[in-house]
């Protein structure tokens, strides 16, 4: 499996990581090597095998419907880069 520059750029965009054009070829090479490395999987016989998304042999625990958290806007906002504004996080204006 070999990835080209265009695909790497598309993946980087999906992951929201700016990649300078001059890095694309190198990165495409690295990622292609990795994909070649994992290619071996295709030879595993997995017919009729259920995918395993967790090793925990239990079902989902549930909690009671009680308000036990929140009510600390100051703490939620304390790490906001550049500080919060009027109790809000802010980002560059989004046009919908």
């Amino acid at each position: 499996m070999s990835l080209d520059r265009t695909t790497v750029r598309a993946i980087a965009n999906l992951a929201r990581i700016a990649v300078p054009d001059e890095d694309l070829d190198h990165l495409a090479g690295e990622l292609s090597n990795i994909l070649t490395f994992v290619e071996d999987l295709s030879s595993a016989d997995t017919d009729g095998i259920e995918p395993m998304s967790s090793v925990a042999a239990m079902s989902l625990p549930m909690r009671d419907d009680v308000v036990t958290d929140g009510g600390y806007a100051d703490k939620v906002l304390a790490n906001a880069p550049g500080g919060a504004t009027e109790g809000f996080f802010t980002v560059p204006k989004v046009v919908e």
Partner: protein
Amino acid sequence: MSDPTTLGIADALRLLADGEISAVELTRAHIERMEAGRALNAFITETPDLALAQAKESDTRRTRGEEGRLDGIPLGIKDLFCTEGVQTSAASAILKGFVPPYESTVTANLKAAGTVMLGKLNLDEFAMGSANVTSHFGPVENPWKRRSDKNAKLVPGGSSGGSAAAVASGLCMGATGTDTGGSIRQPASFCGIVGIKPTYGRCSRFGVVAFASSLDQPGPMARSVEDCALLLGAMAGHDSKDSTSAPMAVPDFTKALGGSVKGLKVGIPTEYRPDGLNAEVAAIWDRGVEWLKEAGAEPVSISLPATRYALPAYYIIAPAECSSNLARYDGVRFGLRVEGATLDDLYRETRAAGFGAEVRRRILIGTYVLSAGYYDAYYNKAQKVRRLIADDFARAFQNVDVILTPTAPSAAFGIGEKSDDPVTMWLNDIFTIPASLAGLPGLSLPAGLNQDGLPLGLQLIGRPFDEETVFRVAAAMEKAADFTAKPDLFAAGGA
């Protein structure tokens, strides 16, 4: 009294109980050691003032008879555990300056047991790495040196490299680590200490910066099996804040120590001895088998046929989960922000500046294998293979009580080596990843030194939630190995 920084935790607890040393004295000795060992770069953040304050409180508790079971023991905390009021960076530029307003469950449990926090330990960025060379705060140095080249700086392994180096060189009595594919066991092996990745679900992941949620598991690292058993007992336990935490009682792991291994069946997987296995690693493995035989255990050859697929499966599953887990580092609510003209620019520039090369690589691979059209071929296939691997172990454990393997395919290597090709670096975890995928407990203990004077570890893998058998066998092997070698602690730092 001997140097307090060479004490084991159990010994220190006895001295504290007998009033022969105070928590403040013990802590002060470690703070001095921590400062002297700075050349190792094991700590990202030192918290000596906090440590002394905690030690004073510990001494007070002890005079009142209110001490916890590890009261006064100074520990290092991997900087992946969120600690209230103390920067938690995950060794990444993207979290530089992030001060959590909350505490991880594991560190809260340790606090409740009375331990003292000396500081936050270096690691590979977001725990992604096997050599602790991807940290934004610089590489950690292994305190061990090659006999043949005392100047070469060696890696401590990773990702819990700061933890391993600090414990090995006496900067702290024990440390927390986390293990996703070998991040406790492999550095333990490289630094000649003991480390255990417990069964998935044994220790809470709440408040631990996530790398790959279905694999991540906190565990202790210390200089003896007994110390690890003590630490794990304090760290573990069901946590209703982690939906994958096992609702199981935590046994007193120290009770398993010293028990006989007579009649125990020890699985020796043939697939872990590939052509070209390092001869010294093979030899130390054979020696381990002999020790167990001598102690009355019975080695049994077993087959884990899906082993060859473990690494590729892991390097699909872990990056896929990481690509999603690391989406929250976006410059909006905490951590680094690089302003942009648009929201997407802000995301792209923040994440480009904040993530290092290895993290970026894994996010991109993970994004790719989950993307439309590739999910079945990669992610879903890897999850199926994961079940094959888990099934292999389940079958093997019908006949054996524990499995013995090498921990890593080599001893510690030089900083800068194996850095050219990520895949070569990944091969470090070839023996640890299968147990991670299956969620099984795995312990590494030092078994001896190679020709060049570097420690080599052996790994014991147990049944789910049967850490007790693992500890029992480990204690027997520890006794047989009689590993007393110590690193040239501060050779590089000149302390």
